[in-house]
């Protein structure tokens, strides 16, 4: 059996070594906010924070998370108050929403490390998450909005 903490609560889960963190989050813990996209680490839909570090949960074996702390999109808001990044993503209006949980966690990790990122820093950091609707400008605006005023300035990145 594997013990891990998810969003502050400890859990004990089956240790079939073939299972990934993503499988366990979705199937055992029913935390379906974390999405399955490509299964090869290339799309970012399954991004979670592992001890605070963004990782793609489809490329983490369950054995590797023994004793570690995971944050999923279900744990990003504090009680009923959305994280500023979530607030901003809602305000900017996304389309299908499939990439949004991963994008929100990735952006939250950026702002914790770099509270006032430049556009270049935002673009580099967010490059590991794909949006099939092509809503990248909305994501950029949302992150700027979460940082502070000026979020609606014209997007200048090439």
């Amino acid at each position, binding site marked *: 059996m594997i013990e891990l903490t998810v969003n502050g609560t400890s859990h004990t889960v089956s240790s079939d070594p073939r299972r990934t963190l993503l499988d366990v989050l979705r199937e055992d813990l029913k935390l379906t906010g974390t999405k399955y996209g490509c299964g090869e680490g290339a799309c*970012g839909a399954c991004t979670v924070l592992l001890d605070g570090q963004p*990782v793609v949960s489809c490329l983490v074996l369950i054995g590797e998370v023994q004793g570690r702390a995971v944050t999923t999109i279900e744990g990003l808001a504090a009680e009923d108050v959305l994280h500023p990044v979530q607030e901003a993503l809602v305000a900017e209006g996304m389309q299908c929403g499939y990439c949004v949980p991963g994008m929100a966690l990735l952006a939250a990790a950026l702002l914790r490390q770099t509270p006032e990122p430049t556009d270049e820093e935002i673009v580099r950091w967010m490059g*590991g998450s794909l949006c099939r609707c092509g809503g990248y400008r909305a994501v950029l605006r949302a992150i700027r909005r979460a940082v502070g005023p000026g979020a609606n300035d014209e997007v200048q990145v090439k």
Partner: protein
Amino acid sequence: MKDFEYTAPATLRDAVKLLAEKGENARVLAGGTDLIVQMRGRRYQPERVVDIKKIPEVNELTFSPRKGLRIGAAVPCHIIYHNSDVIERYPGIVDAAMIIGGIQIQGRATLGGNLCNASPSADSIPALIAYGAIAEIQGPQGKRKIPVEEFCVSPGRNALQPGEMLVCIQIPQSKSNTGAHYLRFIPRNEMDIAVVGVGACVELAGRGKAQTFKRVRIALAAVGPTPIFASAAGASLEGQSVSEESILAAAEAAKSVAKPISDMRGPAEYRTHLVGVLTKRALIGAVKRARGEHVPNAVQEHESAHPVYTLS
């Protein structure tokens, strides 16, 4: 995925024992960003996976003037490129570590895994070869060391024997007047594979107009079955003055050792052409760094005609 046994030994001795017992049927797990994809795709179906991340020696990241830089085989890219010694003394390593996948991949992917996976297009290998890095290997019979340019033997195959594992990558102390640069050409910044990559490391002698190349190492990615050490191209510069002409001649020499294939990422002639362009830019970037000038990391080569690549 086929069923397997997951193990996470706490010592090198136990890891090597677990590997040796299973021979070809055991595989080391570092960041898993190659291995887990390969296991799911059934390219590898190991009976035993040996997760090395609990072993102290492979988590080492230290610099000392005597031993140079030691990068443990399980240290992920994001730790490497945030390390102040690496930033200050080994910017060519930062260039490579910052472009392997995106942020989520860099949180897990290691340079040890990049090297052991032995892909011809692996981004860190040309940078490591340019720096003259050494692979430190542990096996049931003890330790041995081999130069990184001898580590990859064919696509996906390395020089490790069954039971052996990479412990650390050692990069010699960088002398003053030394600079290095790695760049790649790629159609998309993240999540793609280099069409061509080139790493260069130069040591300069003298100043001003009399400045010459003292020692030069150049290595190429994605233009052969393994990363290529273009030793003659580097050696041809030694003793030459630092100029556009000497650099262009070395770029031609690098093109002559490239053996690219044609595939969906580009025809062979195109890749050979790119080797010339990138060798010139890698050398200029390395020279500038050797002179103490700033050259940004993670410059993506599709940002064409970047002003940084002219000699002043």
